[in-house]
């Protein structure tokens, strides 16, 4: 389950201080902030810019370049379904349509109740067991429509 917690400047600064001395520290800092809060809060941008002595525009530019960094809180669970070629060859597109229907959202969206964020991913390296998916960081191979339903429903029950 992904953790989203409320913004706390001191906690953010704490994470920034741990890493700011690394050469090329921006990505490690952004990962740490996203790990801490579930996404990159607007207020983090000036703090990071100041710590690394770069402009806010540069920080923003990096956040928006990489698919991983979020600007808004994700759902309590994040389901990523692979849409790359190996999974296409095993019917991932019908799996995607099925899950979109089941959750009532499109790829890239979060359900209204905030329980699930559905995201595409281009290869999880599980291509010998396509189609594959990752739920809250756990890998799943040979994911059928029924299997996806089961995963979603059991994650819901546990949250």
């Amino acid at each position, binding site marked *: 389950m992904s953790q989203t917690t409320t913004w706390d400047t001191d906690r953010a600064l704490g994470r920034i201080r741990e890493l700011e001395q690394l*050469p*090329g*520290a*921006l*990505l*490690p800092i*952004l*990962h740490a902030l996203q790990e801490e809060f579930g996404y990159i809060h607007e207020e983090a941008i000036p703090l990071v810019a100041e710590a*690394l002595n770069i402009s806010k525009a*540069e920080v923003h*530019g*990096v956040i928006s*370049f*990489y*698919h*991983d*960094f979020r600007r808004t809180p994700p759902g309590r669970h994040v389901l990523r379904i*692979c849409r*790359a*070629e*190996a*999974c*296409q*060859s*095993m*019917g*991932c*597109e*019908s*799996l995607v349509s099925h899950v979109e229907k089941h959750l009532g959202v499109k790829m890239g969206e979060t359900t209204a109740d905030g329980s699930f964020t559905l995201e595409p*991913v*281009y*290869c*999880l*390296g*599980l*291509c*010998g*067991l*396509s*189609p*594959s998916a*990752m739920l809250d*960081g*756990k*890998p*799943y*191979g*040979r*994911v*059928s*429509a*029924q*299997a996806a339903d*089961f995963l979603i429903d059991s994650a819901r029950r546990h949250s």
Partner: protein
Amino acid sequence: MSGKIYVPCDAAALGVGADAVARAIAEQIAARRLDLTLVRNGSRGMFWLEPLVEVETPRGRIAYGPVTVEGVSGLFDAGISEGRPHALCLGPTEEIPYLKNQERLTFARCGITDPLSLADYISHGGYKGLERALKMTPEGIVEEVTKSGLRGRGGAGFPTGIKWRTVLNTAGEQKYVVCNADEGDSGTYADRMIMEGDPFVLIEGMTIAALAVGATGGYIYIRSEYPHAFRTVRRAIALAYENGYLGANVAGSGKRFDLEARLGAGAYICGEETSMLESLEGRRGQIRPKPPLPAVEGLFGKPTVINNVISLATVPIILEKGAEFYRDFGMGRSRGTLTIQLSGNVKHGGLVEKAFGLTVRQAIFDFGGGTFSGRPFRAVQVGGPLGAYFPESLLDTPLDYEAFSEKKGLLGHGGIVVFDDTVDLAKQARFAMEFCAIESCGKCTPCRIGSTRGVEVIDKIMAHENRSENLQLLDDLCELMLDGSLCALGGLTPYPVLSAVRHFPEDFDRPAPVLPAHVGDRAQETQPWR
């Protein structure tokens, strides 16, 4: 002596329930008071048999698979701890034809050892390459790697030794070794398997590279889609430090080598070496024009060796056994072994390490057993999303860099994605352009704009709008992208597109898209991880 039972911790094995199987096995061991130690090994790379459980016996390791949680107690009833027969018993692991018919050099230990046991690593020949390298001059090491014929396994196939020589000959107080572990190509997972199954071999390879070129710092740039690999590599690095294999005094030699694993952030383009450097330096992963080569001006402007995981993980065995040993495998100018990854709609998906020269047909049918769906084979994409689609008539092409470029294909990182007759190559061509548009770094126009225009043109062709003019336009656009893009993303996206048009013209001339019942639904008769 306590016996051992092995359950893989590889992400693919976890994806079909290996953790739950391991827990069930631990419970059985406790309940039956057996003198058996549970070891979490890497994967042997036979994914249709995962979770593959192995037991150590006087006859060698005996394999059982695919094991389900429900089946565990039955296996113990049948005497799995002594390697006794059972419906799931596959006999001695090494005798399974899929494995027996391989030549495992880079993957010699993967699936055999506990990935995070340095003692295991060393007792299986680990650090012998470094031991020899420490007695050699930097020139001697570079010479050995050059003579071995090793070429970059990331996809470009550039001779590793020549790259190293450039860095060695470039003056600089600070030099770096960077491992490109941004394995983003669909259908590939060899890097992931090494990082999860034998991380010390990568650390050893990087250490040897550092000695060869005079580098004191190193980074492994791992894609964020591989959280398990990242955790394993980080722990392995910490263990190497604790045991004196990294740090100020590598293996007592007085030489320094510091190594750190860094996480990518979901950008395919960061597998391109200069984008990766930008990313490591904390910027948008936009590519740098070359020259200067990274070997001269690389990470933080310093001379930098950049190699793929498999290239670096192959270095220890070359140093241990000598250049000739390695060079004797392979064909033509492709020396040594290729780590073939069988993926997609294939019955026996998995890793096949084999000397260069096996044909695509042998890989798909002899090892892979044909399509998973049981439907007729129709197309194969070798080399990831930038690789060409080949029809049945090209299946006798040997897996060799030159043989592939002759057929306007790309060997790439060795991923082979199989498609049955339900595939629509026009859709695949469209996806290639779409993927390029999603992942383009935006630096050069042919890639940034060309990919979007490519999607539009293919849509028009599929809708029968000025079909022949638009096919000509697509051809022109591809030529422009090929010649005008700054890097391989824009420059190679035409490969899958043009090969689809060339080999499967009928798919671009269909009345209206009619989709057959999808094969994916057949894949799912069981949900083993439940």
